């Protein structure tokens, strides 16, 4: 029975793939994402990974990957799981998280440094959405300005966008993922879409705009005319700083490198150095003071000078 169903549905799929009524070939968006982390992730990284995996019905979570240097092995792994995208969490020093987004057979690969991670659980937002519903991906206009941002946008579209008709996806749209470029970083947010009664007085402009839209649609929408969308954040939140883009999948020439990115190690070292320099300065000052005092004969052996009159008690009763 199952086989029959499978064959039937396959046939349907094929029909879907074939030429449309007007002759254009319908492309199928087939994406599968391998989601995995390196060893040494913290609980926060792990929760973030789980959150993202929960949002991606086309994702395939795998066990921790054991190497940080031989990342090209991920290609084989992805091939093994029939995945054409890899989302790899690389944790360093038990605190820094680097996220690799890669298209597997032949690139490109984008490496990000992830900061300000907040998982769904720790953010006490009231939003919620269906597991595996397809999100609307909202990209900042800045993504169209630079080629590297364009590449990043495309890769986000492949990895975070749930393909149409994905196996575990739900048929309704109830959340929006926002990607914004600000301060040289990419800020990722996830919101629930709630439909609310439209407030007439509150936003006149919007209301008018909406109502005209509704008319043009001719009522094809389901109750679109008198409802508006409001967003409630769901989480997780994180900020990605692009570091490099490689042409291949975990390999190949680097076609973009972010000059503005400063490694967290560098930041920490600078902090430490600044602190150390303060200490060194203090010690130097102390040494100078000591030397000066010694020169004046106020310190050390000559601290108590002999009484020139010879009437010192120690002198007298020696």
């Amino acid at each position: 029975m199952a086989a029959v169903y499978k064959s039937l549905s396959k046939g349907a799929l094929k029909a879907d793939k074939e030429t449309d009524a007007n002759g254009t070939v319908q492309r199928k968006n087939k994406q599968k994402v391998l989601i995995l982390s390196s060893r040494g992730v913290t609980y926060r990284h792990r929760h973030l990974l789980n959150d993202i995996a929960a949002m991606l019905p086309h994702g395939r979570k795998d066990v921790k990957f054991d190497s940080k240097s031989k990342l090209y092995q991920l290609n084989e792994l992805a091939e093994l799981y029939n995945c054409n995208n890899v989302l790899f969490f690389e944790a360093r020093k038990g605190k820094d998280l680097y996220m690799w987004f890669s298209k597997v057979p032949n690139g490109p690969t984008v490496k990000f440094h992830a900061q300000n991670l907040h998982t769904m659980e720790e953010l006490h937002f009231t939003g919620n959405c269906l597991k595996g519903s397809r999100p609307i991906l909202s990209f900042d206009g800045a993504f169209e300005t630079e080629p590297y941002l364009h590449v990043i946008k495309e890769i986000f579209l492949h990895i975070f966008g749930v393909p149409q008709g994905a196996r575990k996806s739900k048929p309704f749209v109830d959340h929006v993922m926002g990607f914004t470029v600000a301060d040289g970083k990419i800020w990722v947010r996830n919101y629930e879409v709630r439909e609310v009664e439209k407030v007439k007085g509150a936003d006149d402009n919007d209301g008018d705009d909406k109502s005209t839209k509704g008319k043009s649609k001719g009522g094809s929408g389901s109750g679109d005319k008198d409802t508006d969308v409001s967003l409630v954040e769901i989480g997780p939140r994180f900020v990605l700083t692009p570091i490099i883009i490689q042409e291949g999948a975990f390999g190949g020439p680097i076609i973009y490198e972010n000059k503005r990115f400063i490694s967290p190690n560098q930041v920490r070292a600078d902090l430490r150095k600044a602190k150390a320099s303060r200490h060194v300065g203090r010690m130097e000052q102390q040494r100078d003071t000591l030397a000066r005092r010694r020169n004046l004969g106020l310190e050390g052996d000559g601290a108590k000078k002999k009484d020139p009159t010879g009437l010192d008690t120690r002198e007298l009763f020696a």
Partner: protein
Amino acid sequence: MAKKGATQPPKTGPKTKPQTRGGKSAQQKGDRRKSSEPVVEKMIEDDGEEWEDESDEEAPETNGGKGNKRKARDDESSDGESDSEGSGLEHGGINLEGIDDSDSESELDSDDGADKDEDGEDEEEEIDVDELSAEDEEDEEQIAAGTRVRQTINNKEGLLAALRRFALDTNPKTVPFVFHQSVVSSKNTEDSIPSIDDDLQRELAFMNQARDAARQGRALLCKDGVPFTRPTDYFAETVRSDETMQKVKAKLVEDATAKKAAAEARKQRDLKKFGKQVQVQKQLERHKQKRETLEKINLLKRKRQEGGSAALGATEADDLFDVAVDNELRSAGNSKKRGAAGDSRGAPNTKRQKKDSKYGFGGKKRFSKSGDAMSSGDLGGFSAKRMKSGGAPGGGPKKGGKAPRPGKLRRQAMAGKR
């Protein structure tokens, strides 16, 4: 990362160079186009020899110079052939914005070449070396300062080629929205963020961007007849579990109750503070009222008296009333004072009198216990015998006490023995 060097042979030149020539490049950018063609030719001619000359030394310093020359050659060759991916890495003329820093290096060198065209290659070489060594110093300085300079690599052709290779078709004319469900906003969100550190403003801008996208997406999906809203009777697993949502709800409730309790407590505190004020106010008011009443009565009395003397024809009843009022007033006004003075009670009882005489009542209490001529002259309590027997007022040497001091002779004898 190890592949970086190996996979980018044409880039070795600009790679070692920090971005320190911004000023120079700006002024030289203009005349570059004009001068480039003859210079490049010249350079190419020189190139072969120089190349061999330097290859013997192969010091890391000469790396940059070589790169530049090679780049110059690249420029030349690119006129003829279309750029392939590999060689298209850093064509100066094409990628001006992204890599103008590294570009400026080559411009600088070629310009130098233009100036010193007649002087021959020796001098040119010298200049190169000088520059490079200066650069190296800068490099060292930067390394010493602890700032690693990242190279600007922004290979736009490469990026676009990569994009072309894997991009999905999202053209709204050929592909329905439901295929990709992505919305690119028309404006940059960053422009609407006044300060990136202002959390509220920033999140609001993000949310506005997402909301606009949601509106747009919803409109498009509804137009295509794709289900958008989840029916109320559609139950399925959600991203956040019920437990989490319960926790969130509990937290919300907790927050709300805490806020409410705080407000209540503040109200109570205020009330208390205010209540005290009210009490004081009331007391003052009562005092005032009393004073006023008394004054009024006194006034009345005086008036009465004056009136009484003036109007002799006052009735008997009036007089009676007068007396009564007077008495009443006196008793009311002075009762307390009289009570305190104790006038009305008369002398206290005998026991009290005795005690008063003994312990004293009234009068001056100061210095009552200090000595005076009388007390010092009074030797009533003195006994010579008691004085001799050790000073203890009890009388007689005590058994357990210290032994009395022996007489003088005995003492001397004891001293002699020792």
